[in-house]
């Protein structure tokens, strides 16, 4: 019969402790990374996304302190969407004229009727609406970093239904920033990363 000697027992306990410490370290290392990883993606299973060829990117609702946030993000999104070659984006000037023609009270949250009317005016297949939840600098102890958090929805132009929705958060203070200090990446780089992430969710 196998007998556990006190010495062996001591080794087992030591091994257990080491395993716990390793597990705890792994969890701690992964936590900061998880903190700014998003997110939920909704995709209408009945929608043929290949049918969407022209989109209009509406002004975003801005819940951040930076008054330029909405326009900055929209601008990057328009260029990046065009660069994918998958969809054509209505020029912002033409969109502004369309919004005035359709008489939209609040272009950031159009009603179903307004979506259908605007898409007809602009000859667009869908509208992209969104909101900027966070945009700018965050501080924690001695570390500062830029963070952006945004969500986007695609509203189909004929029915006014939301067919796709996603959100992303990029930047923020990570473990490296906490440990080593530093100011993180510039806001423009973070914006670009967030936009590319959300476009990836839309097209894949």
């Amino acid at each position: 019969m196998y007998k556990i000697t006190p010495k062996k027992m001591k080794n087992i306990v030591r091994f257990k402790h080491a395993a716990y410490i390793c597990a705890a370290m792994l969890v701690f290392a992964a936590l900061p990374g998880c903190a700014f990883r998003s997110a939920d993606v909704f995709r209408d299973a009945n929608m043929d996304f290949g049918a969407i060829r022209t989109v209009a990117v509406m002004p975003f609702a801005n819940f951040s302190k930076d008054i330029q946030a909405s326009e900055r993000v929209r601008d990057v999104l328009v260029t990046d969407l065009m660069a994918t070659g998958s969809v054509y984006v209505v020029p912002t000037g033409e969109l502004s004229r369309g919004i005035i023609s359709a008489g939209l009270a609040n272009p950031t949250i159009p009603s179903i009727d307004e979506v259908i009317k605007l898409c007809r005016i602009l000859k667009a297949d869908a509208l992209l609406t969104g909101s900027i939840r966070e945009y700018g600098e965050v501080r924690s102890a001695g570390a500062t970093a830029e963070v952006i958090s945004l969500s986007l929805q695609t509203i189909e132009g004929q029915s006014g239904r939301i067919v796709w929705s996603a959100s992303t958060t990029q930047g923020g203070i990570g473990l490296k920033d906490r440990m080593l200090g530093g100011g993180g990446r510039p806001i423009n780089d973070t914006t670009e990363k967030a936009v590319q992430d959300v476009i990836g969710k839309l097209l894949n």
Partner: protein
Amino acid sequence: MSSVSCSIKKILLFSLTLLACAGSAPAEARQQSATGPAMPGLRLAVFPIDNLSSASAPLREMRLSMMRKLLDLGVEVINDESLAKVMERHRIRYTGGIDIKTAQALKNEAGVDAVLITSLELYLPDNLPKIALTARLVATGPLPEIIWMESIGLAGDDAPGLLGLGLISDPQKLQERALRYLAGSLAGHLHDRGKNHPAGMAAKTFRPKQFYASEDIAKLRKGRVAVIPFFNESSRTRAGEILLLHFLNQLVGMEIETMKVVEPGVVREKMLNQRIIMNRGVSYRDLDLIGIPLEVDFFFTGKVFAYQDYPGAQGAPLVDFSTMGIGVENKRIVWASASYNAGDDAVFFFDVGRLSTASAMAEAMMRSVVIRMFGEK
């Protein structure tokens, strides 16, 4: 003893060379010398300087200095009285561009062949002064055409040299240096001394961060292009017009003979006549209203998010803008780009590669955009 004196001589010679290098600025190095009459029979009018800097500046002195420099370089400039008479008769108040009516009036009534339009972009007469100017020569006649264009942005600490001997603290000296560069470049062009300014290689740092180019962009080389002031979202007043000038400068600088760039004054006149107010960009209706009568094939515009200069020695300028090009014929976006940079982006050690003015940065960034637009690397 003789070997020691020889060494001392060598050291002195080396020091003198260093001192001489310290005082010279890059702008002066690029200046072209011009002697003799420039394009005989060509008469120029120098418009009052358009102040885009929103700062008080000696505009009159600058203009007179520019006129003197052009005369010295052999360029024929009409006197102030003749120009003032035409301007008064036709109630010309806007001097940042020239429309068709004004161009014709100057041609017929004052015998002017071309107008020099100068814009002051930046004027900071501090201890370390900064100045930025853009000038273009527009031919008068039935359809004004841009003949030459150049811009310069200088700071007192652009070339500090050894022990700071190259620092310029006198704004007058810096102003003269900028005007001399512009006058030299114009005279050089009129003497047919080659290109306006080489488009050159765009620094990797200043390349657009994102861009889209459709297949139709290739038609730009044989098209007629108009640039509309950029939509200004920045805190700097008239930044939209400043970016327009930088974009225009690079388009003209490409020297593509088959591509025609419409004088912004003509576009402005058309927009005023048609009561067009730009609402966050150009709409398809605006494209037709301006594009069809002016026979424009492509419109370019954009947005400015940041255009920041800084006073003194500490800091870095910041420029953030996007551009968009739309074809008039098919109403499609042919080009879109986004660029943002800080003045110290290209610095790796000892401030080498630092740019001190937003103007110099905008020029480098726009050059990169235009080069990418024409498919060059």
